[in-house]
């Protein structure tokens, strides 16, 4: 297939022993959920896709994104966005500067500012651009992290238990927001979680590791 994220015969080995085996295609707008207890190698799979696999691991197989083999590409050239369970907003930058960091270069200063303001308004954070990220609530930070990632115009979206730090009420709301936007932009999504609710809300195929 041309569009979408494709994991082809991926095997990740730790000290020679296979840890994770995946062969799956994720079509644009669809979600593939990888489940399993902690320590089973879920995050390791995501690290392989982002190109940041630690040296104790070895991997076989290939990752294709929108018709290109990105297995050997540098992490910053892959156009794969990722959200972790922590918001990981850069603490030295304002909310607006965090978003600007994600925005690809180009355009006038006013145009860039307008895109940042629009992104903030879209998630109900109008006027938050000059704020210090550490003064935001957990839900607000999660929304900024999401918009920062989307502004970088990724071609696929990886989610590493991104909702597990949020309390129950907020969780469903943020989850819905993330999946809505991924669908709207026709992004293939790879979700890693150990929460059955997340998997159900994602509504796509489910792989369970560690069986």
């Amino acid at each position: 297939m041309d569009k979408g994220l494709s994991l082809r015969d991926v095997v990740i080995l730790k000290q020679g022993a296979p840890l994770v085996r995946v062969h799956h295609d994720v079509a644009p707008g669809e979600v593939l959920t990888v489940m399993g207890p902690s320590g089973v190698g879920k995050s390791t799979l995501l690290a392989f896709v982002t190109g940041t696999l630690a040296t104790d691991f070895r991997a076989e197989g290939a990752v294709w994104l929108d018709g290109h083999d990105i297995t050997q590409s540098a992490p910053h050239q892959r156009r794969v966005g990722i959200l972790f369970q922590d918001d990981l907003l850069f603490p030295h930058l304002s909310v607006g500067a965090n978003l600007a960091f994600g925005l690809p270069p180009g355009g006038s200063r006013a145009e860039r500012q307008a895109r940042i303001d629009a992104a903030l308004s879209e998630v109900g954070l109008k006027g938050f651009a000059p704020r210090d990220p550490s003064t935001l609530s957990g839900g607000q930070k999660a929304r900024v992290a999401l918009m920062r990632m989307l502004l970088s115009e990724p071609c696929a979206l990886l989610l590493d238990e991104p909702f597990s730090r949020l309390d129950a009420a907020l969780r469903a709301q943020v989850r819905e927001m993330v999946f809505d936007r991924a669908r709207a932009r026709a992004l293939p999504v790879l979700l890693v979680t150990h929460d059955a609710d997340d998997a159900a809300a994602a509504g796509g195929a489910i792989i369970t590791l560690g069986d």
Partner: protein
Amino acid sequence: MSRRRLLPLLPALTLLAMLGPVVAGLWGTFLPAFGHLPAAGLTGPSLDPFRDLFGWAGLPRAAMLSVGTGVLATVISLAIVMLVTAGWSGTKPFRALERLLSPLLAVPHAAAAFGLAFLIAPSGWLARIASPALTGWDRPPDLLIVQDSWGLTMTAGLIVKEVPFLLLITLAALGQADAQRSVRVAQALGYGRLTGWLKTVFPRVYAQIRPPVYVVLAYAMSVVDVAVILGPNTPPSLSVQIVKWMSHPDLSMRLEAAAGALLQLALVIGALVVWRLGEIGVAALGRRWIASGARGRADPVVAGLALLAGSVSALAVFLGLVVMAIWSFAGFWSFPDALPNDMTFKNWARFGPGTLKALGQTALIAVTVALAGLILTIGCLEAEYRHNIRVSQRAVWLLYLPLLIPQTAFLPGLQTLMLNIGADVGRVPVMLAHLVFVLPYVFLSLADPFRAWDARMGVIAAALGAGPDRILWRVRLPMLLRPILTALAVGLAVSVGQYLPTLLIGGGRVATLTTEAVALASGGDRRAIGVYGLMQTGAALVPFALALLIPALVWRNRKGLRHG
């Protein structure tokens, strides 16, 4: 593209900058020690230099001073730090002492030594305060306190400077030792806090701080500036005598100096070996003590004495700086008045211009060297991060190597080598020599915070399309602003405090605040020493203040960086 090729070279370049001069210097010491010094028209090999050295009547005493003061200073300062930490860590008095001692780390050895001399000399501040009411003295008593022939004051001068160093090293090690829970378990089993700490935490902490303890031992055995100020003269300690021979107008005296330098190296290596054997002995005794089940009934007494010793050590430096400040403004001040008759700016008007000139030289050298050290360090750490290099314990010892080889063993050789190849002494060689000592400290200061940086920040930034360079400059370095500035301040303070490299490699022509201040020691003009000593201390302390202030200002609206 060129940068991508430069980065992997930086670790090699760093090692070269750190170890190259040491190896070259040892070679340059080795040749003349065996009679080979073409610059003086001498070619070896011959054993005459050693014959001359062993023929010197002062040698046994000089060697004994080196070993005695060095070992005693190390044992006492280590004991104070371990017992204070054992008895008090986690309490209010400990935090107070910690806050008191931290800034003292930056005070140059020479300034601390002068301060101590001003404090405890027969005509010093303590005698003035106590006289005549308590002592009945109306003139300074005829006692040899400073420069006493046993080197006890010199030992004290080393202790007051090594206590803050060892304490900060210990604090860093404590974080990884899970100390609090161990002590809580021991206390639940009926052990006193101090005994519980010594029996459960000390072995782990000592294993961590072993390299810096060895550095303290090697340094204390071969120190020159403190020995010139506080140590005996007839004979002086071996290292001071080596420097005297080196500065003798008769070039052939360098042969004896080189032989002495090799002896100094042998003494330090021997002491380190004996210390290592002592560790094994202490460990055996400790295991027996642990097996005995003693709960530590004397804990409160020992802990109290340790806290007293630690406080006295900190106060000695503080009061020393205060009395130096008073002397720098003193008009007429007769014994036994506690304070001068009048305060005046005359001393500053007289010595100020000289100190400013020395300050300019000091700052030029320190800033260049500290920046070079910082760039090399960041380059090494970033190369380690990008290329996933694992650093072994053995590589860590490489960092300590230049600090373990006595300065007096390789700096004279470096100077002789430069003389032989006709290289000019001066500022640039002095900078390179400073870098040998600045690099390890800058690296040790920055390595932990740099490695502790959350690598997921890098993954996120890369996922947002930022390349490795952009991540380094726009994310990692700004987030690490505070530890980077602290490492820079450490580098500046180390460079400002350097005496021997400046003196020997500068050929006496590079005048920094430290060389000027130490040169005043023999004259004994307390007003001049006060002015120079204060300037020297300020030059080392101000960067630390800035390292605290600048991040607080730059990140005043960034709560997330206030504690990191």
